[in-house]
């Protein structure tokens, strides 16, 4: 076997390469969204694809999110594998009904006869100084819905392969893209096959450590790694887990880490209240009760609407807030 070239690509371009590859591999893969054709999407994730695959494979739709998802449902009924782009996180709500009532439930409702292999790509999260409705983290709503898989990538290599895995999945996948990391570069093996790759539902230990575990996903993985770096300077060895999949949750990887370190901090940009972190905390106390040295800590968004850009730095979890939570797991 010859090693494939692994060029350095920004996360956004890695997604573009993933889409291109998925479309080459399977003629049933079609893209739908607003401005994804000539413009290549507002973040250029579909750049050049309409030119190469034509307007029947890269479809500029009217401006109606429920319409986009509902049309994708019909295409899936017909045997297509639609990949939908929701332009920004805050615009997914008009499509909420089609996603949770139709996309999520049709396999169940039809006794397994109708598959919904729809991938819904959502540029999400804050940190780019956007106006309102452009910085939201709605992943928790979807993780609570049976029938959906919910994932978020944090780096270019994962972005490429996870997107191809999501498209290949026979289940609907909400694919949350950390928009503020679109320009973050990493090595990407665009020729890597997806069948023997790291499975979509697995979390990954991205930094090994022994004193405490930090769980993050999407945009905050980089932040968690920064916190771990700082902690290392202070003599604390922090393990960092990139969750990758929010539904299902890879509890094996989580529990193994917590049993080793005895301390856990979970961080996400979505509100802490009723969030992904709450679910993980509950499961960890159930499965790792006797390994825990301290209560599980959560660092998330406040229970406020996403704030104006000038104050978002106070809203978003940063390395300091995460380190503060780590400190709380070490009672004086």
């Amino acid at each position, binding site marked *: 076997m010859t090693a494939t070239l692994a060029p350095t690509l920004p996360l956004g371009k890695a997604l573009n390469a993933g889409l291109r590859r998925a479309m080459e591999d399977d003629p049933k893969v*079609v893209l739908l969204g607003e401005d994804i054709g000539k413009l290549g999407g507002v973040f250029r994730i579909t750049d050049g694809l309409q030119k190469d695959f034509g307007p*029947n494979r890269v479809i500029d*739709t*009217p401006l*109606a999110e*429920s*319409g986009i*998802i*509902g*049309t*994708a*449902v*019909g*295409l*899936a*009924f*017909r*045997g*297509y594998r*639609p990949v939908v782009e929701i332009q920004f996180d805050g615009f997914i709500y*008009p499509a909420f*009904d*089609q996603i949770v*009532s*139709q996309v999520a439930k049709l*396999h*169940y*409702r*039809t*006794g*397994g*006869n*109708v*598959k919904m*292999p729809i991938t819904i790509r959502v540029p999400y999260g804050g940190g780019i100084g956007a106006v309102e409705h452009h910085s939201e983290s709605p992943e928790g709503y979807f993780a609570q819905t*049976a*029938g959906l*898989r919910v994932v978020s990538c944090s780096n270019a290599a994962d972005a490429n392969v996870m997107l191809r895995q999501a498209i290949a*999945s*026979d*289940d609907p996948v909400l694919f949350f893209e950390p928009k503020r990391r679109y320009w973050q570069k990493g090595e990407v093996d665009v020729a890597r096959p997806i069948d023997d790759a790291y499975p979509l*539902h697995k979390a990954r230990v991205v930094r090994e450590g022994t004193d405490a575990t930090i769980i993050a996903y999407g945009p905050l993985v980089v932040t968690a790694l920064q916190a771990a770096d700082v902690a290392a300077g202070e003599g604390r060895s922090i393990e960092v887990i990139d969750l990758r999949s929010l*539904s*299902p*949750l*890879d*509890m094996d990887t989580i529990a193994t880490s917590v049993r080793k370190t005895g301390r856990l901090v979970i961080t996400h940009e979505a509100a802490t209240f009723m969030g992904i972190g709450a679910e993980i905390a509950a499961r960890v106390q159930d499965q790792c009760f006797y390994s825990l040295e301290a209560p599980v800590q959560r660092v998330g968004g406040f229970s406020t609407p996403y704030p104006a850009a000038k104050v978002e730095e106070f809203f978003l979890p940063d390395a300091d807030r995460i380190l503060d939570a780590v400190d709380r797991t070490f009672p004086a």
Partner: protein
Amino acid sequence: MDTAISRTSDDDLIQIVTPEGKRTEPSEYSRTVEDITIDKLRDLYEDLVVVRRIDAEATALQRQGELGLWAPLLGQEAAQVGSARALHADDFVFGSYREHGVAYCRGVDPTEMLRFWRGSTQSGWNPYEYNMTTPAIIVGAQALHATGYGLGMKFDGAEGAVITYFGDGATSQGDISEAFGFAASFGAPVVFFCQNNQWAISEPVTLQTHITIAERGRGFGVPSLRVDGNDVLAVLAATRTALARAREGSGPTLIEAVTYRMGPHTTSDDPTRYRPAALDDEWKQKDPIDRIERLLDAEGAMDAAFRARVKDRADHTAAELRRGCLGTVEPTAMSLFDNVYADPHPLIAEERDAYATYLAGFEGVQS
């Protein structure tokens, strides 16, 4: 605001058979059903009677506690049979929840329809076996699915077309407007079939719209027909016309079938709270079955042998349906976890195993 007064006249309705059972003047529409000989008209009549009988039997089963709910179609038989009999086998149907008559014409076993309302299954049948979806409760959502399916058919260069059914109330949903817009923009081979039965539970159609539903379609660039929904031949003609347009690549058509829901919205509803009895009486004069009976009678085609044939068929279907309903084998507790995902999902496996262990714990306790 008086919403009970209709602001539209019905002068524009396509009609081929009047309520008195007389044929109207020949028209471009009546020519599309010239192949419907008296024999074929008798078949349509039989369909109407059998469908009404299925509905009556299911309503009775609900009253006897065998079904949790039923959405009767009394009065809408012609709209459903006329449109469904225009379809080819490879056309695809995206229905709502009242299309028992359409499902019957597609060959779905009435027992399978009932099991959904009994609460024994969510699926009823395999959509791909009959090219018809199982019931959709969220009003209007299925119009978008039809549009997407139609788009897929167009990409595939397929022969067929798609038809989707919804009510007058559903036309107020954004999904219906979005479906009109998408289908028109993409030229999707879709027939939007609105059964305007005048009521959305207690709300009259005039609360949903002050123009006709057909006019709403036209506003989206979707050519629209208004048809007497109680005239099975007119509905057949209109649907054939719309399907032909779809098949030749001319895009979507909206059909507003003006009909009337003669019974309650569902078996839980009480229409006497909101509907004047005079209106019911008025519509009884336009009954879809009576008018075909009058026409066949005038043509000398309502002989005793034919009446017996129709009665036998209706009785037989009703008996089968009752037997099937009462003989339903109910699903097991563990079936809860089936088909949530297409691929294995650890959370489902975990919850299924834990629940199985929990249930197994009762075995020793019983007896």
